[in-house]
């Protein structure tokens, strides 16, 4: 099956950011009757996050974050990878399993429709609700320059 890097990046990002509960409810039935070989058990570690000042300046070490990662192989020899923020082994395992399955033509369309799209929609909604909640608290100061002009 032909999959572009961008496509795979997209579903891996959605799987990583999705809430664990929603991820499991949506995918339990598809994953339960599949066989996987665990190449790298879900493991928790620390990663250093680097950033650039103002987005373009010099790089600096912003801090460390905990990450859970996992690698599995499906019965059709596709490898599934996952890197999840925080400590959540079941989430990392499930995300890796789904990544492996999404590379199989038999499951790709079905999983995209039943798992990835709903999760993506949910993420967009959560983001919008948060944005609106924050936008509602925006304060305009008439006497001060806010720096946007």
């Amino acid at each position, binding site marked *: 099956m032909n999959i572009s890097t961008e496509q795979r990046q997209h579903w891996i990002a959605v799987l990583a950011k999705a809430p664990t509960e929603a991820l499991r409810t949506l995918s339990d039935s598809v994953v339960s009757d599949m066989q996987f070989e665990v*190449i790298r*058990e879900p493991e928790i570690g620390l990663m250093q996050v680097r950033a650039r000042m103002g987005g373009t300046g010099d790089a600096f070490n912003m801090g460390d974050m905990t990450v859970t990662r996992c690698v599995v192989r499906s019965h059709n020899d596709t490898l599934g990878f996952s890197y999840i923020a925080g400590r959540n082994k079941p989430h990392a395992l499930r995300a890796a399993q789904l990544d492996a399955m999404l590379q199989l033509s038999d499951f790709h369309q079905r999983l995209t429709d039943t798992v990835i799209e709903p999760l993506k929609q949910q993420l967009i909604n959560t983001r919008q609700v948060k944005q609106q909640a924050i936008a509602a608290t925006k304060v305009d100061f008439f006497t001060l320059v806010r720096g946007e002009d």
Partner: protein
Amino acid sequence: MNSIALQVGFRDSVTNAQQVFRSLLTVMSEPGVIETLDQTEALDTLSPAAFSTCLALLDSTTRLWLAERFAIDSVIRNLSFHSGCRLTGNANEADFVLCPADQLPPLELLKLGSAEYPDRGCTLLVQVGQLSDRALPGADVLRLQGPGIADQRILSVESLPAELIRYLTERPDPFPLGLDIVLLAGGSVTAIPRTTIVEVN
């Protein structure tokens, strides 16, 4: 996708890594003692002992030199996936050298560390035919003496290269500098650190 090349490392990474490390400590401190090391499967041309040792000792801060027979796609992929180690083509900057008995790098090239930091020398991981604590027919029989050995210990090594025997008996590097040698065969391991005095029977 060439995903078939990846295989499982340690079944239980924390416990297995500790077991392997404990065994390596034992053979380093009691030279010539043979320990079992089968926490992983074999990896292509690497024996279980060699693969286990690599997973326990290598990480992103160690540079590994691989002999030609081991520098193959599946070995490189698996070692860098599981351990994150860096490979080097120059034997003189390697922290670890992994080679079969008949493909040793030139020993005089390897890093020895310095008098202040003798621990920065290279460790040689050599995959040999067979190890035994009794005299095997056709094998090189070494008599070991020194720290960690009460009286003397007998070690038979099948297919030990002449170059290595010469190094061990002559010990050209001034102490505390020197190479520590780990011998790996199938599912067993032993070591001859730089402090051991070796005689060939």
